């Protein structure tokens, strides 16, 4: 038992000489401190059994331990008295308590319909005075609380309204009997009561009774409010008579001793004639009259009575009642200072704001100051407005600071009595509400701290939950969000305490959700994507684990998945390797039953859980849209339509356009994609997890163009570095396509990751134009491809090299197969040839072709093949030019290959029907498709000639081919070329003879014979 908790009885009879020297207030404060200190040890840890869910859940190991810890702490409250009303506020002291209850079987709906209407009559101005009466309605009130009605009259049930169904006259006596039984429950304190009968018609209903009102049904009852007003007026009359009755008791008369329930037995056999006893009776009664005055709307009178009562009770050390008198003083002062109310229930039941001071002045009884001196004069009622009372009010009413001091004092007195725990608790709550308005949060927290450790009787689990919830709300009220969250979480834990037969996981979940702001946690992953992490990550993680677990127990795996995904996404930096494994493991377990989606989840409370895309699994660093491969790149054909068409402005330069272009350029990429072609986007990703990450169904999210994404699956090694991933897709329509992001499935959770939301991502533009589908041509030739190209490949041209070696006079056919592998018909073929030589005039045309034959096959439908034949005929005329041989000996000649250029892609496709400006020579309607075949002929030395002198060749080949005739030879060496035409076996001999001549002087020869 805490040291501060004296039993009431032991203190009661003792005179207070021992403490008489110090002032009562300072004593009280000291004892308040002491009791606080002493109580800190109240909660004794107990060895708690395992919570029933300790074994069931996914294993955040310390989580269960922690719950145990907290539950231990929460047990062991010691209880004494009635049920506390956690919603109490100081203004409730001026209200009359009316209980509204159903009798018999009344449907809840009907009852609360009437109850609501009754509640709307919460304040009434009395007709013949300027006082206002306030009513507090309850539909449930524990009768044992009623017994404290003498202590504080607002706890007393003074009115009872019963609502009942009665359909036939023969039920009526029974119904009426029930009403009387109901009255008995609060009988001792009731001033008046009413019975509302619904459904009864006929003779009985006709009789005019004040205590019973008959209504045919629940719709047809317009007079309910009027009835209530009459009822309240009758209450007022009784109240007024009681007030006057008590107030006129002269101090000399025998005053009954008012007492609280637990005191009654202590006063048996006490000397009722002693001065001490009389003073006590006086003081208590004075306090009681103060309460009645306050209820009757006579604020100033009540202040006077309370002051007197405080003096009287202090002198006899009647601490409990002294506390009550002080609290009454506080309440009255609070009502005066804060007309808006402290309960936060809205101003509906309060004064219309600013008119209060005037009204208060009016309500003030004349001569209040004198009353302070002469208590016997308290008989007049307070209807005469008198300005001279200003002085009295100023003196009697406590200042805002004093209110708090007096509250402290009162609470310290209450704390001496174990049985007054509820009173103390409620006083603390009231004081906190006042302090919250005064914005004195430190002091408020002191009161709350005290309230936490007030022992009540064995609280039921619901009451504990209620208690912690209310503590949390009060902390919230004074701006202590973290503290508030703490208690709310304790309340949540209480909902699922092992001692509860049916754990309230829903309530637990709901309360946990409410704690989140206090822990700087929101459930929107966007809040975490920017800036530094806010809040205590370890605490937040624990909370998320709890949410996951609670939602699982609620039977809502989708919620579990969402919370777990959120945990993984936002807390990734704070998870240890082991935790990462554990979390993903349990996430996979959940998603095997209920895959994670991108749909927002709506909670019953109106809250919506936004989707959690896994932007960190894997982390994407770069996003780059890739150009098409060179062979598929679209090429713009310069058309007669002119370039002016492309620039929309008639001005050469306009700053506006320049600006727009600049902007466009920054976002738009300068290449195009083609409808129907596979387009690629490269991502650089890495896996932050300490294990292999399997990403499935990874594809692109695009807008603007219908796009068929071809998802990929990848597996990233543990803690990989940057890893390139190419995502592909096919645009199905034309327009401007924007790559917005990508989608993945990781651990069974679908994610749509938008690039805009990714922090630290590097992207080189994400918008690209998609142009209409173009024909595609594949070219193959009858000749083998050559290994080396003649020309370095330029960006625009696609070349294929084939090589053939021919002797003079020889001819060969080159068949070029043109296959339309696209989806569009090919319509135009253009062939040009070019001999790369400076001396072409000497050699004439090697190549000839007949384009008509090929063109006859055009337009080439998709999948069709056309052939194009080129005749190659080598015909050199050695006779006419003397130095030809010489030239040839310098250069050699070889038709070593020819590149075939790919079809140039046509960017602009004029359609005949749409564009009348089509060139007239294009006889064929439809698209042009250019095919250009260019011949290249270069001469260089055939390498075979020098095969035997390889080392020499290697050195000399390059210079030979590049700079004809300039060969560096060693001194004394020369190079001899012998060229001849050979058409038969017999002429080989003469050729050999020619070689022989040369051979005598040369180191090595080769001959080649066609």
């Amino acid at each position, binding site marked *: 038992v805490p040291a501060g908790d004296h039993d009431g009885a032991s203190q009661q009879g003792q005179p207070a000489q021992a403490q008489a020297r110090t002032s009562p207030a300072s004593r009280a404060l000291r004892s308040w401190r002491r009791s606080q200190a002493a109580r800190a*040890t109240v*909660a004794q*840890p107990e060895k708690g059994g395992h919570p029933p869910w300790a074994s069931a859940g996914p294993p955040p190991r310390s989580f269960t331990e922690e719950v145990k*810890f907290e539950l231990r702490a929460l047990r062991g409250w010691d209880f004494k008295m009635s049920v506390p009303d956690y919603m109490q506020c100081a203004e409730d002291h001026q209200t009359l308590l009316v209980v509204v209850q159903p009798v018999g079987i009344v449907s809840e709906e009907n009852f609360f319909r009437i109850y609501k209407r009754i509640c709307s009559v919460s304040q009434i101005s009395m007709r013949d005075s300027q006082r206002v009466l306030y009513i507090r309605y309850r539909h449930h009130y524990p009768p044992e609380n009623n017994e404290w009605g003498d202590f504080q009259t607002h706890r007393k049930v003074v009115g009872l309204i019963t609502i009942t169904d009665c359909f036939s006259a023969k039920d009526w006596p029974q119904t009426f009997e029930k009403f009387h039984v109901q009255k008995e429950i609060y009988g001792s304190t009731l001033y008046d009561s009413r019975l509302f009968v619904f459904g009864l018609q006929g003779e009985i209903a006709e009789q005019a009774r004040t205590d019973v009102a008959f209504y045919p049904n629940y719709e047809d009852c317009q007079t309910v409010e009027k009835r209530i007003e009459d009822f309240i007026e009758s209450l007022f009359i009784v109240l007024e008579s009681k007030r006057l009755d008590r107030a006129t008791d002269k101090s000399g008369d025998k005053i009954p001793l008012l007492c609280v329930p637990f005191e009654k037995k202590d006063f048996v056999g006490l000397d009722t004639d002693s001065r001490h006893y009389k003073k006590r009776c006086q003081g208590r009664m004075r306090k009681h009259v103060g309460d009645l005055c306050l209820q009757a709307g006579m604020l100033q009178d009540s202040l006077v009575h309370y002051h007197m009562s405080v003096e009287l009770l202090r002198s006899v050390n009647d601490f409990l009642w002294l506390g009550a008198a002080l609290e009454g003083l506080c309440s009255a002062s609070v009502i005066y200072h804060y007309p808006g109310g402290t309960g936060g229930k809205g101003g509906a039941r309060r004064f219309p704001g600013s008119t209060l001071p005037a009204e208060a002045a009016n309500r003030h009884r004349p001569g209040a100051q004198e009353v302070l001196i002469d208590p016997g004069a308290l008989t007049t009622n307070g209807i005469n407005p008198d300005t001279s009372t200003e002085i009295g009010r100023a003196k009697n009413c406590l200042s805002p600071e004093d209110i708090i001091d007096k509250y402290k004092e009162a609470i310290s007195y209450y704390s001496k009595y174990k049985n007054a725990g509820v009173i103390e608790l409620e006083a603390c709550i009231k004081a906190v509400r006042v302090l919250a308005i005064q914005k004195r949060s430190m002091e408020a927290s002191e009161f709350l701290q005290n309230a936490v450790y007030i022992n009540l009787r064995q609280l039921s689990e619901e009451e504990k939950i209620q208690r912690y919830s209310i503590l949390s709300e009060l902390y919230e009220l004074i701006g*202590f969000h*973290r503290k508030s969250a*703490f208690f709310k979480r304790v309340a949540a834990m209480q909902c699922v305490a092992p001692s509860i037969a049916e754990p309230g996981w829903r309530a637990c979940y709901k309360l946990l959700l409410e704690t989140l702001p206090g822990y700087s946690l929101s459930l929107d992953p966007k809040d975490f994507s920017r800036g530094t992490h806010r809040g*205590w*990550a370890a605490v937040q993680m*624990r909370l998320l684990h709890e949410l996951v677990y609670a939602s699982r127990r609620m039977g809502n795996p989708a919620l579990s998945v969402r919370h777990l995904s959120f945990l993984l996404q936002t807390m990734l930096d704070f998870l240890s390797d082991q935790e990462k494994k554990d979390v993903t493991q349990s996430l996979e377990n959940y998603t095997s039953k209920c895959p994670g989606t991108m749909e927002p989840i709506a909670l019953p409370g109106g809250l919506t859980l936004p989707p959690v895309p896994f932007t960190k699994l894997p982390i994407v660093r770069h996003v780059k849209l890739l150009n098409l491969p060179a062979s598929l790149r679209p090429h713009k054909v310069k058309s007669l339509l002119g370039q002016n068409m492309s620039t929309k402005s008639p001005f050469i330069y306009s700053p506006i356009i320049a600006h727009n272009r600049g902007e466009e350029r920054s976002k738009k990429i300068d290449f195009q994609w083609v409808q129907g072609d596979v387009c690629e986007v490269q991502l650089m990703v890495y896996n932050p997890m300490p294990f292999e990450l399997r990403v499935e169904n990874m594809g692109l999210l695009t807008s603007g163009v219908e796009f068929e994404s071809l998802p990929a699956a990848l597996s990233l090694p543990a803690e990989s570095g940057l890893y390139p991933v190419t995502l592909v897709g096919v645009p199905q329509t034309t327009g401007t396509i924007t790559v917005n992001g990508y989608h993945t499935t990781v651990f069974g959770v679908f994610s749509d990751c938008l690039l805009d939301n990714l922090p630290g991502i590097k992207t080189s533009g994400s918008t690209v134009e998609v142009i209409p589908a173009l024909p595609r041509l594949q070219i193959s030739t009858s000749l083998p491809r050559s290994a080396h190209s003649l020309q370095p490949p330029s960006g625009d041209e696609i070349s294929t090299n084939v090589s053939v070696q021919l002797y003079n006079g020889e001819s060969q056919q080159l068949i070029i197969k043109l296959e339309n592998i696209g989806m569009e018909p090919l319509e135009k073929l253009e062939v040009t040839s070019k001999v790369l030589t400076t001396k072409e005039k000497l050699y004439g045309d090697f190549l000839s072709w007949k384009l008509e034959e090929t063109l006859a096959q055009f337009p080439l439908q998709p999948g069709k093949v056309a052939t194009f034949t080129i005749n190659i005929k080598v015909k050199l005329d050695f006779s006419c030019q003397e130095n030809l041989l010489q030239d040839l000996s310098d250069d050699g000649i070889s038709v070593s290959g020819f590149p075939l250029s790919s079809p140039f892609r046509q960017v602009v496709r004029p359609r005949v029907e749409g564009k009348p400006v089509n060139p007239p020579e294009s006889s064929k309607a439809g698209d042009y498709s250019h095919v250009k075949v260019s011949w290249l002929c270069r001469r260089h030395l055939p390498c075979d000639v020098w095969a035997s002198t390889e080392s020499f060749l290697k050195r000399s080949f390059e210079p030979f081919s590049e700079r004809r005739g300039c060969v560096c030879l060693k001194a004394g060496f020369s190079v001899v070329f012998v060229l001849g035409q050979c058409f038969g076996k017999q002429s080989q001999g003469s050729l050999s003879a020619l070689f022989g001549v040369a051979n005598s002087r040369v180191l090595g020869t080769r001959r080649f014979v066609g």
Partner: protein
Amino acid sequence: MSGSFYFVIVGYRDNPVFEMKVLPAGKFIAHAALDLTDENMWLLNNMFLKTVDKFNEWFVSAHVTTGHMRFIMLHDIRQEDGIKNFTDVYDLYMKTVHNIWWVLHQFYVQVSNF
């Protein structure tokens, strides 16, 4: 000093920077005590705020630096004198903070190879 304790340095985003003798529930109590710490630091002139809060058997003592770093100590024995040595911790803390590689108020102190 006997009895169990839990010590944590909390940055201004309520993020723990340093923890010692981790207790699972200690975090929650310490977090809840931050409200009172924040209120107290404006009321007192000292950096050492003494016992600012308590929950059941736990007392919470706090010390605030000029940079609004909060040293929170949970202990189950009321011992104001013993806790005065927050100044020692403060000295160490100051030395650490003056290290240029320390990124203030961040959980992870990254020291790159240079």
